């Protein structure tokens, strides 16, 4: 078995990246309601389990998940998030890839855990708010008005960030488990899982 990715693998990565991007963006529209913006990673974690699990049925080489993370990060960068998602997505996807490799790309337990890690990459969309908190607040004050800042300010704390990371991870595990069930219900019968 060759370790290099062939064209078929690359095309699979592309197609599933599109699906995950579209899902994240469609549900990202909810982020314009101030509080829900902070719930976005959790929502994304819940929703991306099914495509990710289906994607894993096509993965048998090291590098595919990492590549997908890198591409998701690039798209996030090009669509107006900062450069931070490129780093977080790539790192998280790399760790997820390592976990999958430990389970030899067939262990169910490892794929569920790897989704939990993989989806943590989306925290990169949120991190700038926390790191650059003060600068962000000042910018918001001038561009979004006082009301918005007052609503959102109490939530931009470090412990909220930790809670969000843990919640996202747990939701990632749950949705990967759901994904496994959906896979059994719909796709194995159709012979494509």
């Amino acid at each position, binding site marked *: 078995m060759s370790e290099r*990715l*062939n*064209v*078929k693998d*690359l*095309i*699979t*990565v*592309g*197609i*599933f*990246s*599109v*699906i995950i*991007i*579209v899902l994240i963006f469609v549900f990202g529209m909810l982020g*314009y*309601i*101030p509080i829900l913006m902070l719930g976005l990673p959790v929502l994304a974690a819940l*929703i991306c389990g*099914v*495509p990710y699990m*289906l994607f894993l049925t*096509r993965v048998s080489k090291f*590098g595919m998940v990492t*590549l*997908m993370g*890198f*591409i998701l990060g*690039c*798209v996030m*960068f*090009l*669509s*107006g*998030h*900062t450069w931070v998602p490129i780093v977080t997505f790539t790192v998280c996807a790399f760790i997820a890839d390592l976990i999958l490799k430990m389970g030899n790309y067939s262990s169910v337990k490892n794929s569920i855990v790897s989704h939990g890690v993989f989806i943590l990459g989306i925290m990169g969309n949120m991190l*700038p708010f926390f790191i650059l908190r003060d*600068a962000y607040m000042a*910018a918001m004050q*001038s*561009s*979004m*008005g006082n*009301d*918005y800042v007052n609503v959102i300010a109490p939530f931009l704390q470090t412990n909220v960030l930790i809670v969000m990371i843990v919640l996202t991870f747990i939701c990632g595990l749950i949705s990967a488990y759901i994904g496994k069930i*959906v896979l059994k219900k*719909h*796709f194995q019968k*159709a012979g*494509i899982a």
Partner: protein
Amino acid sequence: MGLELNFSIDARTKIIILAILSFMVFNDVPFYVSGILVLIPFLFLFLSDYKKIALIYILIYVIAKFLQISILPTATGILSVLLIAFSYTATRMLPILVMGYYTISTTKVSEFIASMEKSNVPKDILIPISVIFRYIPSLYEEIRSITDAMKMRGFGLTFKSLKSPLKLIEFYMVPILISAVKTADELSAASLTRGLSNPQKRTHLISVGFNKFDYLFILIAVVGLGIYVYYSLGGVLLA
């Protein structure tokens, strides 16, 4: 029109400008800088037969900017939250959205691959990205036909169906995923036939390269970026 303008932009230019525009959203910049950068996608669209979209875009942007400057600092209550959401989206996201729309709708995949291979982008990154270019429009078609099919079975996008969102998500997701898997197989079969996995250097039917428009727009965008960086590093002189 007597004026024959041979307007074509290289795919690399589009992506460079998209990246530069993405840098600008996070911080506030003086209006004359962001204004010029906002005009770039407008000019692109206007010069390449998307005149209607270009005009709508610039109108929405001007309204949003006006709201932001003149009404927001004093507004309160629920109305202001809505207005904020609108003006924030329009002033920050709209230029990128429009630029992304322009990039995706005017770049042919073969053109994109040709110009990317010219700058030696590795194949492992190039192929997934060109699949993204190719697949987003057909995913849109797919979603539309799924909606139609659901309407036929009495489960359209109505309030009744929104009551059971999990079902709605399942009904959309499963057909999309199945068609995605099929598309992946078909695309890889098609590209194998055309020798995409051949390690030899490929030749291209279309010739790509920078022309005077490319250099002009990149120059404008880079100068804008320079002013932006200088400004956000604390160069108060320009404020």
